[in-house]
């Protein structure tokens, strides 16, 4: 699988236990910084309705959708209960020279 590292932002642009939205070539992603200071990325839209997850709340390893509080584990993409039942796709992330990159395949 060929993947393509894309620069998202400076590592400091995302607060700890927070998320930002990242749009790239017509696609939208959510990029997270966990409370233990690791970075993760998933598809940007909730699988229940097409809602940007980056407006939601990060709690530990959970992102909660702002619209109806559907929950996902953003580290694995796993849907954690109603009303969401379809998992999120996740993407590899790396931090290099103070910048966050995600691998978009």
């Amino acid at each position: 699988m060929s993947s393509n590292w894309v620069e998202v932002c400076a590592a400091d642009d995302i607060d700890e236990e927070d998320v930002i939205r990242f749009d790239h070539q017509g696609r939208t992603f959510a990029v997270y910084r966990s409370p233990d200071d690791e970075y993760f990325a998933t598809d940007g839209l909730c699988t229940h309705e097409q809602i940007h997850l980056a407006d939601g709340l990060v709690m530990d390893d959970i992102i909660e959708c702002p619209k109806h509080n559907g929950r996902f584990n953003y580290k694995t993409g796993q849907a954690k209960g109603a009303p969401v039942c379809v998992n999120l796709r996740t993407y590899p992330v790396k931090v290099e020279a103070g910048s966050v990159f995600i691998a978009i395949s």
Partner: protein
Amino acid sequence: MTHIVIVGAGECGARAAFALRERGFDGEITLIGSEPHLPYERPPLSKEGLAGAEPPKYVAGAERYQAARISVITDVPVEVIERKRKFVKLAGGRAIQYDRLLLATGARPRVFEACENAERIRMLRTHADALAIRALLAPGRKVAIVGGGFIGLELAATARRLGAAVVLVEGLPRVLSRGVPEEIAAVVAERHWREGVEIVCGARIAAIEADDNAARVLFADGGSVDADLVVVGIGAIPNTDVAAAAGLLIENGIAVDETLRTSDPDIFAAGDCCSFPLTHYGGRRVRLEAWRNAQDQGTLVAANLMGANEPFASVPWFWSDQYDLTLQIAGLADNAETTVRRDLGDGAFILFHLDGEGRLIAASGIGRGNAVARDIRLAEMLIAARSRPDPAALSSPETKLKKLLAA
């Protein structure tokens, strides 16, 4: 094998059925509903679902019920609960034995008494209702909506999107009088006005009439509004008839205790049909008509049907979408003594409601898209934690609510 029977195949009944399996219940589950469909989501019926209409947005596809071994019986109401011998009787006569019973029968629209039963006079609760309303909404058509609550206002917004003219008639001096602060209701009303909805408040309606070609709202002062369709949205009443006939305690809904158990220890009730003591508000008895409450109670009642005996302790939470505005409310504001406003930019704002002791008891917000969602969610957590946040911190958008929660 233990058999759990669920009466009412709506949001709450379906959630409870799945939650039973998620918690490892291995017995038999039967979900019985009077509508012809598998459980579907009602909120879209007045929003984008009305514009799109077919099919309804199902809570889960047929294959998920199968995989979870949930038997679903649709299109048949339960008519009798025989408590002594522990079975329910369906229309048509079939009897189904239960060990534990869950009533999740929801609510139905309140009927306006001086109102004919006609094609062109409608209420909105089911997918079938939405289809009938949708068929009469188009450019060049006019709809008169009776009732300035959430369903009426959402329908007004959707009708405008579909190009229909809208008059909305409310009996009280303003829209959204129940549970929504005036400052927020004013934003909603102003937006409707700008979108071309005519709002008439303080109206005294004498009657609603219709014939094959038109409908009409008649006012006590002699005036009237002509329309192609009248939709009445004046609230809902809980479906308690079967429970009442079985002798269960009814108090503005099927009365349950904090574990959602009715006056019969083998029968529970949850969702729009039940009234329950609200833990965070001194145990006062309320009945909510809210989607997440139906979900949360469905999840908790599943545990209690299996004997967990856990109290229900969620903070009420509600949302409404109109045009590109979303309103969210957490908690109950009616005992508030002070209100603090936080502006979030782009017109979005949140009102924090504090009681006499400075405790946060509710938060109501409105803004475009999900502008208020995160702060309302954090407010909900602050309410659950019974915290007394510094009003200055609440009003300043620079202070992250997450910090207050950690404090």
